[in-house]
């Protein structure tokens, strides 16, 4: 329990840190009620608090988030993840990404394990329309009945149609695990390697593990299955809808009947730029490599602030023909100027100008469509360009502009000073 309280305190403190301290940090907090149910069990409900924090640089993103449940007057860590993404610059529409995660997952108080994983992706972006990616990686779970690393390979495609973004992914999982000598239907299996009770790693004596080794015959068996999933994200005005549905291919040994098909949906209604009402529900498939069973869930709650859509979900769109709704530069504390941009439905917003020696600076998402960056600007005139989703550099709206002499335009900002 000390661990849970510590995680909550650290993440909540980070969340409440004044945003002016560093403009590259974004945070959010979700709080609400969640109801979950596994097959054959009564549904259980809990109060969920999920703080998160994210640090963005042009080619590096670091994030941490977690969640804790208050159930039966006890706080319990539900999960936690620390992620890092290294993104190579886009060259001729092709971009490489390296993603790494360290996570701890709990299904309930008696079922928890850890995992470290790393993935690489090659994205091919088709201007304005969509893109495809292929990738692969390896995950290493601990404290589960998996005796090898998990090989993950897959690919996907995405496209934008109007206000909607649609994506489809196919992901293949392959690993060796210790399992009973019978499949989920009860049929006897031939084992490649017959062992006694499963040799589960119990190096952490304080933890309680998912695996309950069968007293009878167990197998060391190669397990393979593939997930085909489609997802759609649609936003219009203050409403955002997300839905996904999937099918898992694999033998009855590797895929239990409750994880063959799944679907889930969530709706977010923004009350203002930083506060949203969130509701949703559906079914999550089992995480076979980590021993987390399938579950159905429903949730309703509030979200404070937000950050960009995870890059792991959908590749970045280049040069989308969207317009910045507003652009503003105002004096902030300590000689800094705060750039505020309002634009929805994009993943990155960059500015560059004489103040940055014409190197791109990435704005931080502070709300649904709110992006901010604090920079030191000396009194005088400054030239500035803006781009969204790594598209073309343009002059921001609402400020004087001039032709730049290179077939484009720059915006002009006049910062008042002491005269």
């Amino acid at each position, binding site marked *: 329990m000390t661990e849970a309280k510590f995680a909550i305190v650290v993440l909540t403190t980070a969340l409440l840190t004044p945003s002016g301290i560093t403009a590259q940090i974004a945070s959010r907090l979700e709080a609400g009620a969640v109801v979950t149910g596994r097959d054959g069990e009564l549904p259980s409900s809990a109060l969920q608090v999920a703080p998160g924090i994210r640090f963005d640089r042009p*080619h590096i993103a670091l994030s941490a988030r977690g969640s804790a449940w208050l159930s039966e007057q006890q706080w319990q860590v539900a999960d936690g993840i620390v992620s890092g993404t*290294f*993104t*190579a*610059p886009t*060259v001729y529409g092709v971009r*490489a*990404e*390296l993603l790494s995660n360290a996570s701890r997952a709990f299904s309930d108080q008696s079922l928890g394990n850890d995992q470290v994983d*790393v993935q*690489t*992706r*090659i994205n091919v972006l088709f201007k304005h329309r969509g893109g495809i990616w292929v*990738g*692969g*990686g*390896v995950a290493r779970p601990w404290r589960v009945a998996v005796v*090898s*690393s998990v*090989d993950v*390979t897959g690919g996907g495609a995405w496209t934008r149609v109007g206000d909607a973004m649609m994506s489809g992914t196919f992901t293949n999982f392959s690993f060796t695990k210790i399992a009973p000598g019978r499949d989920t239907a009860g049929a006897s299996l031939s084992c490649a390697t017959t062992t006694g009770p499963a040799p589960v790693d119990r190096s952490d004596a304080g933890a309680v593990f998912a695996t309950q080794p069968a007293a009878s015959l167990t197998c060391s068996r190669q397990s393979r299955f593939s997930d085909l999933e489609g997802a759609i994200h649609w936003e219009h005005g203050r409403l955002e809808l997300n839905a996904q549905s999937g099918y898992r291919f694999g033998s009855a040994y590797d895929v239990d009947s409750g994880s063959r098909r799944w679907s889930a949906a969530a709706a977010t209604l923004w009350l203002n730029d930083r506060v949203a009402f969130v509701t949703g529900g559906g079914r999550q498939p089992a995480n076979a490599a980590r021993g987390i069973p399938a579950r159905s869930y429903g949730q309703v709650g509030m979200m404070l602030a937000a950050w960009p859509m995870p890059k792991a979900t959908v590749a970045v769109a280049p040069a989308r023909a969207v317009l910045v709704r507003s652009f503003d530069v105002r004096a902030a504390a300590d000689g800094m100027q705060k750039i505020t941009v309002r634009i929805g439905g994009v993943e990155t917003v960059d500015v*560059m100008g*004489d103040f940055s*020696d*014409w*190197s791109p600076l990435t704005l931080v998402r502070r709300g649904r469509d709110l992006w901010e960056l604090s920079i030191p600007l000396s*009194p*005088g*005139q400054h*030239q500035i360009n803006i781009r969204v989703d790594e598209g073309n*550099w343009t002059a921001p709206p*609402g400020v*004087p*502009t*001039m*032709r*730049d*002499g*290179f077939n*484009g*335009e*720059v915006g*002009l900002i*006049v910062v*008042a000073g002491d*005269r």
Partner: protein
Amino acid sequence: MTRFSRFLLGGMCGVALCAPGLVAQDPDPFAKLDPNSRFAVEAIIDSAQVAGLPWRNLRSRALEAIAKKVDSRRIVAAVRTRFTTLKEARAALGSVGDGELGAAAAVIEVGVKPEQLTALRNPPRGRSPLAALTVLGDLITREVPRDEAISAITKLWQEGRTDADFMGLFHGVESDILQGLNPGAALQNRIREFPGRAGIKPAPPAGEPETLSP
């Protein structure tokens, strides 16, 4: 893990890890210029330093062009042009700050004659023509007839209008143009909103006496 998947994973890791380093920004800002162009740009910047011109403006101009992937020959031409217009701006404006010189050089490059800026010459202490030059450049970029734009800005300047007045003019003209008004009509429309002004007329040729509009 099969040998193939190890090879695939290793290869992709290599690409992901090496690519950022390969294209990372070089600490030498002019490293992307070919040697001849680099020599020319650095020589012009040195000349500006010797002449007491705002050489940082020239450096920024070169960096802007590099960031926008302009070819080296055009970069040299742009820096050389800016060097020339900075000299013309200083001759027109007299003793003003580097920022004002840079802004004046930019409006000269969009077609304003240096002598048309003499109305802004030697501003009184505590007053800067920066906002006036910024809005002038914007009006010309928005295709307001050049002479009308220059006339309007110089007269507002001579009337002692503030930076807020110039920015207000910009916002008004921008709004009218976005609503479909002809750029010249938009300027006429907005200039009438200033107290005591009924309109503008093009600035007289340089050297001729100038009268304020009623």
